[in-house]
């Protein structure tokens, strides 16, 4: 499973992507967040506060959407283009 971060979230985490091979128990984006939060700062601070958007395989999704082990999941702040 590929996990991506963009914009201000990427900067706060100092991480743009991770490859997860151990996806046992990960069935939704919320499960990913829960596992990341256990790492402590800055993960818990960045992921618990503020509005977070998520996409699965490059389509907008919800935190409780169903995930497959081969999915690409991205987390990012609200978009501000245009």
């Amino acid at each position, binding site marked *: 499973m590929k996990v*991506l971060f*963009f*914009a*201000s979230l990427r*900067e706060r985490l100092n991480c743009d992507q991770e490859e997860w091979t151990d996806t046992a128990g990960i069935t939704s984006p919320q499960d990913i967040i829960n596992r990341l939060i256990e790492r402590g700062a800055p993960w818990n601070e960045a992921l618990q506060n503020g*509005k977070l958007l998520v*996409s699965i395989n*490059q*389509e*907008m999704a919800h935190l409780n959407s169903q995930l497959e082990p081969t999915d690409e999941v*991205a987390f*990012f*702040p*609200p*978009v*501000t*283009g*245009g």
Partner: protein
Amino acid sequence: MIRIQKEDFNVQEEMDAFKSDCPKIGAICCFTGLVREFGDRTDLTGMFLEHYPGMTEKALQKIINQAHERWPIEHVRVIHRVGELNLSDQIVFVGVSSAHREASFAACEFIMDYLKVEAPFWKKERTTSGENWVEEKGTDQQRAERWKDQTTLKD
């Protein structure tokens, strides 16, 4: 037609492309967005545009498909720039052609409104005192949501 690029674009060339596309066109509606100072800020020097390659194109195509379902439009061109931009630079171009003006006006505004809330682009302002990410505006969300209640020309 969707293009995500660092380079600037020429509005006249995009208009000309529409005209060579299809003889059925009676109207072309174009919107061009520029880098400007925000609110009370007068110290903006430019901005950095980040995007999510792959998802950006998919999100824009989905918005364009929705516009085609709602209005009798012919062609759509969307160009969004990424990377470093300066004050007054062109950021985004949305052009829609149709047989009549009503559909092209509406679809152009619809595409721009949804681009603002569903396409994965993020602006980071450069100012004389530092850099900061632009936060979402509630008004953008409201502008996109008002389309949900509207009937369309195809209904």
